[in-house]
């Protein structure tokens, strides 16, 4: 084999601490290397041309580029060598930047390490084989998980582009957190007025198949061809018949259920439609509260239902859908305010979360939009808003900023002053974070026009005194301790990842960070992609953000799916496992360890059983390779002899 080596200087990134010229010179002494040079920016267009020219001039059959991590530019160089007529797998990238030049300042040691790394790449390349990918058709249907505003936007954009969409929503209605909001910042437009039409669009769009009150059970397959199992949870109501008339909810005698939609400020019935604009507007029975399902007596809803839709014997149902791409828009949950014992959330009825206050402000909420405090229904005269409850606080494992609280506090305080001009609003803040379009102006308006009193500093303690709450804290600008007698305390609870986010990530085989937010493929340049091809992200499941950003991401994810589906087939990765049937002893260990179900039994004509790899399902993780006792399963492009060649080069 005739091998060419290109050592990249990467400006000073590599050349600053590695003698690239020496590395190139030494590479010429390695077996089969007939050409070696160093170059300023190998990934640049002239750099790639240089490689292609060398292939032609020197008749090169394999290329080693010593540069950055293959995660950065492997695809670039593979394309370059392919254009020059080589097989793309006759290329090896030696990482002398992240693994070498960036690690140490010792130029001498770095140069030795870089040379060794190049040598390993050369030795592996000498035993590389050309590999060829095949084409598989793409199933042009998309699954959207989560029916909040991000998921709704993604689903509508996909459907408008002519794609068939399957939407799965965990709750009995779509709308997500936005449906609970009264108004939105910075325009104070009514949340349900702008979200409602979009929800209706989802219901009416023939391209969108909605599974509400359903969850993802399992996901298998790969980009272009996913198989998704969906658990349709038992609603105990036949939704094909239910008209959403609501008579059952009026008659239900079990009225003490936790009202999730109203954040527990009110109670609700065992058979329930969360809110009037629910999509789909269908009733669901809570089996834990239903008198018939718990005690065996009642069936009142069954009697009053005119369309006879009640089904007490309903069971969960598993449905299988085939899709080509998945958009994950599973949203978030809110920090449990009771973690801060000093604020008394969950202990004092008039210390409430901001989402609870949002329901109090809402005309469709438990108080009909009249601001009344939960304990005695009195109109508050003094309200204290406490920011950063579960944000920017490492002591509760929430060191990040929730990105929306400063803005929603300004909105809620503005709304309060608008509804009750005599009510004093105080906001305790650490810093005001208002970096969006018209955001800072909005906060200023709250302070200057609406007279909301902001003080910088933390509240240390809230305790009841008579029917008041005493809020003790520090004003760090005045350098003084302050005490406010409040009627109501609103805690600006931060954003945390949705319940069950980690489990879903594992089903989808995507990564998540230590707080349960899903990891994008690149924090700047691939913000809606994941590292699992064909799975995209939208909204707060990826990290805290506000409505405009969530909608933007929803549209971005939809356009990524459109882009993927603009082709009819997709190239498979040939770097997958393969079985040498002559060596396979049929022990089945590989079948047990494969996390993707990519290996199955195959019976030969003589009746013996051998392992068989489903190439389109295999992800090339190599677990089977490591497990196989006779080493009959090999991972293409990472075969034992290839790995050993590299290791031997280092230790020989």
């Amino acid at each position, binding site marked *: 084999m005739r091998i060419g080596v290109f050592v990249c200087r990467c400006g000073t990134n590599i050349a600053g601490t590695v003698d690239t010229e020496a590395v190139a010179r030494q590479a010429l002494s390695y077996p089969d290397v007939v050409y070696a040079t160093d170059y300023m920016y190998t990934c640049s267009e002239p750099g790639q041309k240089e490689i292609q020219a060398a292939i032609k001039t020197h008749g090169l059959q394999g290329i080693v580029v010593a540069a950055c991590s293959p995660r950065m530019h492997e695809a670039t160089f593979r394309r370059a060598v392919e254009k020059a007529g080589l097989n793309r797998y006759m290329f090896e990238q030696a990482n002398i930047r992240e693994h070498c030049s960036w690690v140490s300042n010792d130029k001498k040691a770095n140069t030795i390490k870089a040379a060794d790394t190049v040598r390993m790449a050369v030795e592996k390349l000498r035993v590389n084989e050309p590999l060829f990918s095949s084409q598989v058709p793409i199933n042009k249907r998309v699954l959207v998980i989560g029916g909040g505003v991000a998921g709704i936007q993604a689903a509508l954009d996909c459907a408008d582009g002519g794609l068939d969409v399957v939407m799965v929503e965990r709750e009995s209605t779509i709308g997500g957190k936005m449906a609970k909001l009264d108004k939105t910042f910075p325009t104070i437009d009514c949340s349900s007025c702008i979200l409602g039409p979009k929800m209706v669009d989802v219901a009416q769009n023939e391209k969108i198949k909605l599974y509400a009150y359903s969850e993802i059970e399992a996901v298998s397959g790969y980009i272009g061809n996913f198989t998704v199992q969906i658990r349709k949870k038992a609603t105990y109501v036949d939704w094909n018949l239910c008209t959403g008339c609501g008579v059952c909810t009026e008659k239900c005698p079990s009225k003490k259920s936790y009202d999730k939609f109203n954040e527990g400020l009110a109670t609700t019935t065992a058979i329930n439609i969360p809110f009037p604009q629910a999509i789909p507007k269908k009733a669901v029975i809570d089996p834990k509260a239903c008198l018939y399902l718990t005690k065996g007596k009642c069936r009142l809803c069954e009697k009053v239902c005119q369309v006879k839709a009640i089904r007490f014997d309903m069971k969960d149902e598993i449905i299988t859908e085939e899709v080509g791409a998945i958009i994950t828009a599973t949203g978030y949950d809110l920090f449990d305010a009771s973690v801060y*014992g000093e604020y*008394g959330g969950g*202990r004092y009825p008039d210390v409430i979360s901001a989402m609870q206050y949002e329901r109090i402000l809402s005309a469709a909420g438990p108080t009909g939009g009249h601001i009344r405090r939960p304990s005695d229904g009195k109109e508050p005269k003094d309200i204290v808003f406490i920011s950063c409850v579960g944000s920017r606080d490492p*002591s509760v494992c929430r060191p990040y900023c929730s990105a929306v609280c400063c803005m929603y506090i300004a909105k809620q305080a503005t709304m309060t002053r608008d509804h009750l001009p005599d009510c004093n609003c105080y906001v305790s803040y650490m810093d005001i974070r208002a970096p969006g379009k018209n955001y800072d102006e909005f906060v200023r308006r709250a302070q200057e026009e609406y007279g909301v009193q902001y003080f910088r500093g933390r509240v240390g303690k809230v*305790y*009841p*005194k*008579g029917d008041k709450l005493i809020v003790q804290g520090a004003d760090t600008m005045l350098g003084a301790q302050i005490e406010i007698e409040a009627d109501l305390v609103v805690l600006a609870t931060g954003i945390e990842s949705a319940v069950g986010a980690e489990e879903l990530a594992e089903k989808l085989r995507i990564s998540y960070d230590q707080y349960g937010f899903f990891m994008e493929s690149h924090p700047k340049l691939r913000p809606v992609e994941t590292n699992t091809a064909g799975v995209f992200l939208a909204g707060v499941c990826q990290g805290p953000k506000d409505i405009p950003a969530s909608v933007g991401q929803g549209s971005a994810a939809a356009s990524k799916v459109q882009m993927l589906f603009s082709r009819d087939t997709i190239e498979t990765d040939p770097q997958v496992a393969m079985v040498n049937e002559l060596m396979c002893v049929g022990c089945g260990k590989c079948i047990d360890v494969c996390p993707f179900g990519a290996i199955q039994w195959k019976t030969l004509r003589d009746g013996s059983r051998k392992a068989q790899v489903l190439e389109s399902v295999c992800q090339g993780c190599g677990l089977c390779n490591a497990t196989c006792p006779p080493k009959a399963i090999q991972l293409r492009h990472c075969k034992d002899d290839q790995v050993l060649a590299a290791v031997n080069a280092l230790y020989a």
Partner: protein
Amino acid sequence: MKKIAYYPGCSLEKTACEYDWSTRAVCAALGVELVEIPNWTCCGSTPSNAYDPLLGGALAGRNLAIAENQLGLDTVMTPCPSCLKSLKGALKTYQKKPEAFLKILDMPFSGNVRPISVLQLLYEEVGVEAIREKVIYPLTGRVIVPYYGCLLTRPPEFADFDDPENPISMDKLLEAIGATVPYFSHKTECCGASFGVTEKPVVGKLTGRILEAAEQAGAEAITLACQMCQQNLDLRQGQVNKYGNTAFKIPIIYITQLIGHALGIDAKTLGIDKLIVNADSLFEHKPSALRA
């Protein structure tokens, strides 16, 4: 019988001797053998740590090393939260700078010894149920609020006990001995600590609001597990009244005294008469309250 090394600390020798007596008596009644650390010395307190943290750590560490070497015990209990903080600080200092620490200490030390408070001993080691079973004179109908102060549960990663902002261990112990325990809003608010010596108005204000909150909660008495808090709330109650123009007369009693009484230990042994604000009214039993 469970054996635990006992470090009383200086306050419990004199100003808070009733805390020491009642701790010993209660532990004995509950089957915990306290072995006083022989030849124990000062925990270092604030001055030594202000001068040199390593020295402060070693001073407290000496006592842990004796418990480990001479007594062969792995748990050291001290009723004083300040001493507890010093003992725990010694472990941290040892972990941070083991060589320098051992050099000053000049005796073997492995660091495998755990300092706990008397509250932690009663709540976690003995257990609420074991105490409930041994109650002879329940405090039925008595409304008592628990006051934890600042150090027993904080800082959380240091104290490693109960909830830092809303602790409940003393609440549960009080309930176990039959008392009625209303929610107490000021259970962890600062009493003013040693400002009682230098800045009386600070203690007047801070301790005053604790007493006020207890009165509002309908408490007949406040119970606690810190002799510094006890001093401010009890000994200085007159000063607080003068400062705030109030007339509080709330008995401030150690949790060990209350449990001791419930277990049938006599008032003299528990040092009830050592309290400044008379607490006798708490123990006037109607005959019907007697259970045996």
